[in-house]
């Protein structure tokens, strides 16, 4: 395996592992809520056996919470399934906003733990490119992570999507160089992915933005 392929494989496995950990955390949370509500039902039934009145409204509310968590876990498993199938096709047509929204959703809690929120400004009409879905998600995630460490106290990073002469632009802002020794994009963890997907990345320090340019066809 070449160094480049080895590096890409390592980056991909790390991304997949991180997302699987986030998904398992989400499923565990749903299971924990179901567990506590089942336990609460057990507590209430034991109390009813010893003479306390069991309120049917209360039972209905507990049941409703369990149903809600089952639906939440089902949604989480669907996300896991979509992530797993993102490696099926080496190249396919991708709705960039849809894939970015999915990537943001998968990493939402991880990013929130850094104290940053991500918001997307979608394009006026759907923008589609031909690319590798998994590698593109990995690239989007790495650039998000890089941007999150350079917000200079800003609570929100906005990612705007727009068509450009070269393909599609994803503009991350604000991203500043404050406190860092240059943007060092060549050393950033996404440099191999940028090259593999024929993409470009530019740091415009004066506008405090990072621009990821994706070609229409990889």
């Amino acid at each position, binding site marked *: 395996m070449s160094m480049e392929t080895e590096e890409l494989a390592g980056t991909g496995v790390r991304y997949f592992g991180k997302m699987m*950990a986030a998904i398992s955390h989400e499923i*565990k949370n749903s299971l924990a809520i179901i*567990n506590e509500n089942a336990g*609460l039902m057990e507590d209430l039934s034991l109390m009813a056996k010893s003479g306390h009145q069991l309120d049917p409204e209360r039972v209905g509310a507990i049941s409703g919470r369990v149903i809600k968590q089952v639906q939440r876990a089902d949604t989480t498993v669907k996300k896991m399934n979509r992530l797993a199938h993102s490696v099926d096709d080496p190249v396919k047509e991708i709705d960039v906003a849809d894939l970015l929204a999915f990537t943001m959703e998968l990493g939402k809690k991880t990013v929130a733990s850094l104290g940053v929120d991500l918001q997307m400004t979608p394009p006026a009409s759907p923008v589609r490119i031909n690319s590798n879905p998994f590698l593109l998600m990995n690239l989007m995630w790495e650039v998000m992570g890089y941007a999150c460490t350079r917000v200079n106290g800003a609570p929100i990073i906005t990612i705007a999507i727009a068509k450009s002469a070269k393909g599609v632009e994803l503009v991350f802002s604000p991203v500043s160089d404050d406190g860092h020794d240059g943007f060092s994009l060549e050393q950033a963890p996404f440099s191999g992915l940028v090259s593999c997907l024929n993409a470009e990345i530019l740091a415009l320090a004066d506008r405090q933005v990072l621009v990821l340019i994706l070609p229409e066809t990889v």
Partner: protein
Amino acid sequence: MRVLLVDDEVEYVSTLAERLSFRGIDASWVSSAKEALERIRQESFDIAVLDVKMPKMGGIELKQIIEEINPDMKFIYLTGHGSENDYQKGVTDGVSYLIKPVDIDKLMTTMNQAMINRGS
């Protein structure tokens, strides 16, 4: 025993607090580190049960700040994540580390043990 439960999953932490109250525990709950610090500055608690992964500030960082406010408090980490790094951090900090979903009797035992250690 006065216990503060801190977890960003509101439906989880509120139900757990109610179940603990059935078992004679004076349990309060909040859903963020910020709210936890506000409560701890106003009230006295014996134990804090902290979710390790929360937005903005997780349980490990929160514990360090609480200890400065109330050095006598005991801590239990509770998480759905179960990562090796977090577990090791819990071990290093000398804090019990429970993984969700947790058995309430195990949580009660862990809290009682923490109170015994506090008294010794």
